[in-house]
């Protein structure tokens, strides 16, 4: 369980940005230079919250190099990608509206179909 270890720090660290871990697996990493783990820091200088909706848009603009439609469609992840927040299905925490916390681990998994 990777529950937020230090939410105190997350509130104080606005000036340093919001640090989270992104992970891609099940093939989704192939859209990101095959790199499965990305530690990123999101800009919090304007004081607004980062929810997953905004994160997906940020990923599209900053990490995704080509063929964004294989990852994003209609401002959410395309069908067949499961999103996890700290090892739980994002449906359990509000999906696109979930507000990121410092040290969150957000995982994007392509469903596998092979057998």
């Amino acid at each position, binding site marked *: 369980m990777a529950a937020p270890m230090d939410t105190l720090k997350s509130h104080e660290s606005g000036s340093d940005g919001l640090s989270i871990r992104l992970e891609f697996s099940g093939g989704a990493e192939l859209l990101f230079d095959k790199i499965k783990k990305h530690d990123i820091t999101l800009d919090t200088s304007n004081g607004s919250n980062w929810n997953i909706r905004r994160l997906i848009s940020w990923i599209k603009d900053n990490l995704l190099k080509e063929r964004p439609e*294989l990852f994003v469609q209609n401002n959410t992840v395309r*069908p067949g990608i499961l999103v996890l927040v700290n090892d739980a*299905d994002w449906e*359990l925490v509000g999906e696109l509206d979930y507000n990121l916390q410092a040290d969150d681990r957000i995982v994007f998994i392509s*469903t*596998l*179909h*092979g057998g």
Partner: protein
Amino acid sequence: LSRKKTKLDNASIERYCRQLILPEIGVKGQLSLCNSSVLIVGAGGLGCPAAIYLAAAGIGHLGIVDYDAVELGNLHRQVLHSEAGIGHSKSTSISSSVSRLNSSVTCVPYHMQLDSSNAMDLVHKYDIVLDCTDNVATRYLLNDACVLARKPLVSGSALRFEGQLTVYSYEGGPCYRCLYPKPPPPETVTNCSSGGVLGVVPGIIGCFQALEALKIALGISVSFSQKLLLVDGLDGSLRTIKLRPKQPGCAVCGTQPSVKNLIDYEQFCGASATDKCVSLHLL
């Protein structure tokens, strides 16, 4: 499928003695296994290990569905087949391997394509269903058939070095459509033919499918209902994810289902259920 066993004969006691002495099984549990039936859809990388371990443990009736014939390119992961079996039916090949190991198991090969016209009849005949298939259309088909027939579905999948496992529609948990209401765009789907797979990864997942099916047959709690096991063979990570509950708005298992009979799944997914291996030009 046949009369219930109420007593273990001496040969069964000798065969199963190492699992009979487990307090979670015992004679009562072994009888439950012998009186259970499991349908395995897909006689490939997942179906092979799943079938042989279910047969070894004494599941009384196995059904194996696959329309395909054994090819040389299957043998790196489909370990119940053989060089001599190339060109022959995969379902019959598994059935022969099962009989060699445990002739007391009735193993029926179904050499056919599972589709909307035959799935319900078949699924109704078995207690537990294993999804060992390799394409999206058959996964939706099998999910809907299991929801409609009220059968638990133990679903495995593998690609490259990764594998996934979960149990659908069991003890109030979600179904495949609860998680994936819309099929993936066809151009995003990679199968083992195009993406490749290391054979032992479906080996691991197929074993876990057998384990979960055995626990259902024994009446022991399963571990992966509303949970997803993610295996990454490359970095050795084994992660268990908490999934959403059954969704009231689900099109097939929700409170007001729109899918009350099987539909056309190739049309629904925009993809064929019988993608054959594309030829490779490696060198």
